């Protein structure tokens, strides 16, 4: 490196700039982060409580019923046996913790992602701004934003939700935008020609026609959220991720494998059920 490049490096100290930004944000937006944390925490706890309340047997029956209804007899039986296995292995409560974490992240991801996707579909400028941001969110290694998340929201499940959200939001936005952009021009013309208002266009033509694509996005969001669970365990998010982590750090291979299997069972159940939502009769 010559002197000029060294000077340039001092000028372009991206790392230090990022640090400064984080420090500034923690210092000045303390109240905002606190409120957000409490809000997310409340939602998370509500989901946790709801999932744990009926007890494992009733929930297993319910899950199996949903799987059977949406996806057929095979998935129904798989869910029944798989969930029962989770219960036998003693992971029921942590699995429900994980599910609550996933549901919370996905719900927030959809509340943000679907409207953003609609906006991006309708407006090329929004699309052009949003796309690189989503690229960054998907490719930046999780650990890089895990630390700031802890700085903002302290240790626990809430930064886990935030990290999961960052990782799983992009497909919801992308596929909503794609789905709406793919609505055939003639269907849009028909909607206009029969006298649609802009709202009627969106809710009676565009969104229903785009629904299968949007649901594929929801499915992807859920899958990505689940894959983030283990990493979220590192910052004390609890759930199955924590068990896997214990298995790794304490060299308990059996524990790691069993909790890993639980994640897989949960993933297959969620995948089959959400895939079926996008299909038309």
């Amino acid at each position, binding site marked *: 490196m010559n002197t000029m490049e060294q000077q340039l490096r001092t000028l372009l100290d991206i790392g230090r700039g990022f640090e400064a930004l984080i420090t500034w944000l923690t210092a000045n937006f303390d109240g905002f982060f606190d409120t957000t944390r409490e809000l997310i925490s409340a939602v998370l706890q509500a989901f946790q409580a709801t999932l744990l309340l009926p007890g494992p047997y009733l929930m297993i029956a319910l899950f199996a019923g949903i799987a059977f209804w949406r996806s057929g007899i095979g998935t129904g039986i798989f869910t029944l046996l798989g969930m029962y296995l989770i219960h036998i292995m003693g992971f029921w409560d942590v699995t429900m913790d994980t599910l609550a974490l996933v549901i919370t992240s996905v719900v927030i991801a959809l509340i943000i992602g679907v409207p953003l996707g609609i906006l991006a579909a309708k407006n090329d400028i929004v699309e052009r701004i949003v796309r690189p941001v989503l690229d960054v969110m998907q490719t930046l290694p999780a650990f890089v934003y895990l630390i700031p998340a802890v700085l903002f929201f302290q240790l626990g499940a809430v930064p886990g939700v935030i990290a999961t959200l960052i990782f799983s939001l992009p497909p919801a936005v992308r596929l909503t935008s794609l789905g709406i952009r793919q609505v*055939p021009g*003639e*269907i849009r*013309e*028909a909607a*206009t*020609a*029969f*006298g*649609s*208002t802009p709202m*009627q266009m969106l809710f*009676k*033509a565009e969104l*229903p*026609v785009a*629904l299968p694509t949007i649901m594929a996005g929801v499915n992807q969001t859920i899958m990505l959220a689940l894959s983030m669970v283990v990493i979220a365990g590192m910052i004390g998010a609890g759930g199955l991720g924590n068990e896997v982590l214990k298995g790794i750090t304490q060299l308990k291979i059996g524990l790691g494998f069993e909790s890993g299997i639980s994640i897989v069972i949960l993933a297959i159940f969620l995948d089959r059920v959400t895939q079926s939502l996008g299909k*038309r*009769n």
Partner: protein
Amino acid sequence: MSIIEVKNLYKVFGPSPSRAFALIDEGKSKEEILRKTGNTLGINNASFTVEKQETFVIMGLSGSGKSTVIRCLNRLIEPSRGEVLIDGQDIMKMNKWELLQTRRNKLSMVFQQFALLPHRTVLSNVEYGLELSGMEKGEREQRAMKALEQVGLKGYEQQYPSELSGGMQQRVGLARALANDPEVLLMDEAFSALDPLIRTQMQDELIELQASMQKTIIFITHDLDEALKLGDRIAIMKDGEVIQIGTPEQILTNPANDYVRAFVQNVDQTKIITVSSIMLKAPTVGLHKEGPKAAIRKMEQARIPAIMAVDAARKLKGIVTIDDAVRLVREKKDDLTPVVSDQVFTTTPDTPIANLLTTALETSMPVAVLDEEGRLMGVVDRASILAELSKSMEDEETPVPLSEQLDEEATTPGKEA
């Protein structure tokens, strides 16, 4: 009464319509405008009126601007300049709400690729337009059912579009348009995506339906046969301009320029050209006042061997030959009635000429043309029928005498080498 009036309509696609209009006003050509400003003239000064209850076909090849024109009528595409009057109201001057009401109540559109909503059942698709205007469920279901019945889709209400064939999907599209009970149906290449057999069937059904419902239909097509079959009047477009408007017969018999002429050349004219265009004024004898001598004089004047006999109301009674008339004179009888022969073929003015071929071969007498009340309008003679039929066959390959063929080969030796 005209329901749609289009006056001096222009549509300019491109970066700077105002610059294009400056050149248009200078009378520059379409090519020049494209070269100088990068603007494409989609519609170039189109004007036409559509009468109530008529089927008005706009015909042209792709790129002729026909689809742009129909989309200007309901402002799916904003016209750049000109007037579009619907029931006397300028659609360009309507505010959002008025435009919405016009689209909901006056104009319905049928699309080339059907444009049905895949997530809705057939019934729910047909209800769509009514649902948009806020009609309550029971009433719109009733009207949708009626529309489905009209297009022959009763019993398919609960199916999804993907479960239907193309022809049936387009019936749903048609029913959806009819359910709104619009004044005008805009049909954009509505049958072009269907295979030929189904297309013909749909055309027939549209004609039948139109006979009972009497809507105003504006039909876009690139298919001349379809245009001639469906249209009461046809507008032919090329490069954004309307180059001729007329009845099918006017277009065929009197093409405005070479472009139209080239177009209509391949049409089997005898199926389109009707008796009325080759009908001749026929001399007649009135049985109530004229006798054999008058009949003979008229036949001599017109140089014909037989004459049509009519009564006081010009109703056709039969035909009198010159031989019979002469015989009556010789027998000194005054009444023609006993020799009036009913051995005469009759037809109507709107019969296609092709239908007369067998008759023309069978009889040497002229064919009488009658109106609905049986009154004589004129005659067509054998010669003109055969002449018209042979005219349409001119372009086809005729047999070549062998001698000519041999001569030709002899004069062009070594052609193969």
